């Protein structure tokens, strides 16, 4: 019997509310010291990653969020039996505890921004051309022409990156004020200017949302997406101080990974 993990919670108490897990399985908590790991029992995971499964997992984690601080587990995290689970809890206890304290009363918001990349590039090209008008110099040979084209493209890219940095900085000044931690990713695609996760105190969530709408109205040519509050998927980290403990933890991670491989599980 495998245990499907939904998250680590900051209490060893039983879950009071009846929660349905993946494929209708019963969700319950296994206590370890003063924290707990929320699981359901599962025979085998045969189906691929479907939207339904991901939403079922997410719904469990969000229900837990109502009563506990939760460290959400990656979708399709499986452990082979209770003994392996408790061994994992023992090894990671200090990390789990530290993360639970750090994330107490906080949730994650996602912000994505699409900018008019084509217009930005066109604007840059026009500006560079006006700075350096074409001169009718001697005819260039192929190698020199090639280098000139590359150099111009390089300058356009540099300017494109600089403008992206400027926009992100301006947006982050507003949003960052209401966040305790953040993860910003710039230009994952040419159009996707910003893909950000902000960790926000629950008491600041309204202010954060207000700041978002303020930025949105100040950038009419841009497209915005705000999502949340989510469990803090992007802000759970494990410490790496003790090499001996790291090696031990690496083995346990491998155990978890192996158990995932056995059932053909993928991470999301």
């Amino acid at each position, binding site marked *: 019997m495998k245990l499907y993990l939904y998250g680590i919670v900051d209490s060893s108490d039983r879950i009071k509310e009846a929660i349905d897990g993946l494929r209708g399985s019963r969700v319950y908590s296994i206590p370890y010291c003063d924290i707990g790991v929320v699981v359901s029992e599962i025979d085998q995971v045969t189906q691929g990653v479907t939207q339904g499964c991901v939403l*079922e997992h997410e719904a469990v984690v969000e229900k837990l969020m109502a009563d506990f601080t939760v460290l959400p587990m990656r979708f399709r995290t499986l452990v082979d039996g209770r003994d392996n689970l408790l061994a994992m809890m023992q090894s990671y206890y200090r990390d789990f505890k530290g993360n639970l304290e750090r994330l107490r009363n906080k949730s994650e918001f996602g912000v994505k921004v699409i900018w008019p990349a084509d217009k930005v590039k066109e604007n840059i090209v026009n500006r560079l051309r006006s700075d350096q008008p074409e001169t009718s110099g001697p005819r260039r040979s192929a190698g020199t022409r090639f*280098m000139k084209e590359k150099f111009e493209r390089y300058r356009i890219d540099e300017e494109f990156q600089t403008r992206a940095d400027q926009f992100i900085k301006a947006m982050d000044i507003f949003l960052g004020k209401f966040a305790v931690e953040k993860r910003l990713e710039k230009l994952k695609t040419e159009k996707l200017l910003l893909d950000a996760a902000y960790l926000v105190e629950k008491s600041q969530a309204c202010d954060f949302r207000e700041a978002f709408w303020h930025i949105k109205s100040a950038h009419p040519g841009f*497209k915005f997406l705000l999502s949340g509050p989510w469990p803090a998927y992007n802000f759970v980290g494990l410490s790496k101080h003790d090499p001996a403990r790291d090696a031990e933890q690496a083995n346990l991670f491998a155990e978890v990974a192996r158990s995932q491989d056995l059932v053909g599980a993928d991470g999301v």
Partner: protein
Amino acid sequence: MIAHAIVETDSPDEFAEQIEKSQDALPAKIDANPENVEKGLAKLVLTLIELIRQLLEKQAIRRVEAGSLSEEEVERVGETLMKLENKMAQLKELLGLKDEDLNLNLGPLGDLM
């Protein structure tokens, strides 16, 4: 089904397209089997050559920017890089690879290029 989280946007399709694009860049797993092992190896080798080619190109551009190359040197470097780029294009076509195929996911370090 989701209890609390809300997604708010005026352009859901456009965001879905961009998110898909950013995730589609690389497969989650290496697709290695007896039928495509040669192509997989060729892809890996070409990726490394492409990385070196891009590094050479950037170095040359920096030197042009700094003005440390004579006209003859710019011509020679330009011709070499141009030939290298053409050869890479031929190899990619021969092996049925696209520009976006020539990359490696280095896990927490991100993509190679």
